[in-house]
């Protein structure tokens, strides 16, 4: 009997040892999964927000998966370019998509530990890549000669120049708190102790970043996300002249940008928990689920904001941004004077 049990235990141990290496993912695979998660989940988050928003308005709303169907439909359509546009117009969606695929390499999407490319760029580096994406889209819109696309491009550039100082001050706060400006470092600092979360500098910077994200993703106090009124449009108007697969890439890219910003807010600032602390399959799978859950929750919050506020007049957007700027500056002040 003893022998049988011993034999079974040996077998069991053998099985465990055989299974464990298979359960651990290679680090490059995890790195690729970060990008893939953002790529695949992004339209779904948009679908969740649209669904919750319409439910709150007492309408039935479209399916959560509707954005995927829309993108698939657009990929099957013919692509037309306005007369006189050059290669810039057609290259822009591809360049933008490449940018959005690069940023998830730099930020903690799934893991608490930095992946090989994690230290390739800091928050500013990620910001530059996102800015490059929006720059090429603006160039493409400007090259079309269509008034609405140009209006969207010029507005987007004007207002992003105003939000830039807010982002800078948020980065300053991160730098003062961690001594570096790597997103992984701040996430680690926040996880380290509960004291980090209630410190006013962190709360103020997170609030300022949230307001910037509302602006960058074209949500309600700034822009109607699903409207058809061109005069109120900022970012949405830029893709008016693109069609077919190019439009699909732009749509997909804009949902990816939204998810990337959500991930930065959630996994770096407000809730860097539920990430994988090693490369085991189970931990990474749980991290993906946790990420989807957290982003969906944030999306519900954004849908509630969408339904409870009115869109600001175009010239009132500066007031919105000045409030965000005030929060970001106060967070640097409290850090400098008294370690808040």
């Amino acid at each position: 009997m003893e022998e049988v049990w011993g034999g079974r235990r040996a077998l069991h141990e053998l099985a465990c040892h055989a299974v464990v290496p298979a359960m651990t993912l290679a680090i490059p695979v995890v790195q690729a999964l970060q990008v893939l998660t953002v790529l695949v989940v992004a339209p779904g988050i948009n679908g969740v927000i649209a669904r919750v928003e319409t439910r709150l308005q007492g309408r039935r709303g479209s399916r959560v998966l509707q954005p995927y169907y829309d993108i698939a439909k657009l990929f099957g359509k013919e692509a037309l370019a306005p007369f006189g546009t050059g290669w810039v117009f057609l290259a822009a969606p591809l360049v933008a998509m490449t940018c959005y695929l690069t940023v998830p390499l730099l930020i903690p999407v799934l893991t608490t530990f930095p992946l090989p490319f994690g230290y390739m760029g800091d928050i500013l580096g990620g910001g530059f890549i996102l800015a490059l994406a929006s720059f090429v889209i603006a160039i493409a819109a400007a090259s079309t000669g269509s008034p609405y696309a140009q209006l969207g491009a010029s507005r987007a550039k004007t207002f992003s120049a105003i939000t830039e100082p807010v982002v800078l001050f948020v980065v300053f706060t991160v730098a003062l708190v961690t001594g570096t400006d790597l997103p992984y470092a701040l996430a680690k600092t926040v996880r380290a102790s509960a004291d980090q979360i209630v410190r006013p500098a962190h709360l103020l910077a997170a609030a300022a970043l949230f307001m910037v994200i509302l602006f960058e993703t074209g949500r309600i106090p700034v822009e109607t996300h699903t409207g058809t009124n061109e005069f109120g449009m900022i970012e949405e108007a830029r893709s008016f002249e693109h069609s077919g697969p190019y439009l699909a890439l732009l749509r997909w890219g804009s949902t990816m940008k939204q998810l990337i910003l959500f991930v930065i807010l959630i996994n770096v600032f407000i809730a860097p928990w539920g990430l994988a602390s090693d490369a085991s399959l189970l931990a990474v799978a749980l991290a993906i689920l946790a990420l989807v859950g957290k982003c969906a929750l944030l999306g519900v919050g954004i849908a509630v904001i969408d339904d409870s506020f009115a869109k600001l007049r175009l010239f009132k957007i500066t007031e919105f941004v000045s409030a965000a700027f005030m929060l970001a500056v106060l967070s640097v002040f409290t850090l400098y004077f008294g370690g808040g």
Partner: protein
Amino acid sequence: MASLIAGVAEPPSSFAGLTTALAVLMLVIEFGMLQATLLRAQIRLYAAQSVVISVLAVVVAFARDVPELYGLAAFSVLLKVVAVPLVMFRLLRRTNQEIAGSRALGVASMVLLAVAVAAFGFFASARFQLGSPVLPAAALAVPVAVILVSFVLMIVRRDVASQAIGFFALENGVSLASLVVAAGLPLILEVAFLFDLLVAVVVFGVLIRVHHEQSESLSTEALTELRG
């Protein structure tokens, strides 16, 4: 610089963080008053600011074991959150005018101006080298900024209601400062301050009514006209 960053890198204790966050929340509400466009919103912002300072008093009383502060918090809730807003609402009930457009500057420039003034307050109070036994140093810089921003509020808003609220908010800043510097200030003194505030509310209320009856508006522009 390196030492500064090293000093900043370690987080304050939860108590220090929470109290400073509450103090900063008061400052943020003060900024909100700068751009409030409705009379009711202005009074509600003041009430919210008073709620925050009462909560702060309770937190300090609990964490630092200063039981008098519970009494102070109760008094300040009764007076600043209930009585003052009620009196203001009653006095201004008949004025069906709003205070939108009484700003001397645009909202964005006003906020930038107030941020600069608050920065001055932060720098100035950092120079004092004042320490406090009960609250962190950052919490001392905030009341100075609150007081300065309420001056800005009184200067850039040209309506009597905002100016009165700015004066009351200034008193909130002063009581925040007294909470930081001398949390054990005798209760009777603090309560005397609060009753001073009540007198100020009544006087301001009467002045606002007289002004409104004479000029049919809440704006102070009418006061610059010469009378023969």
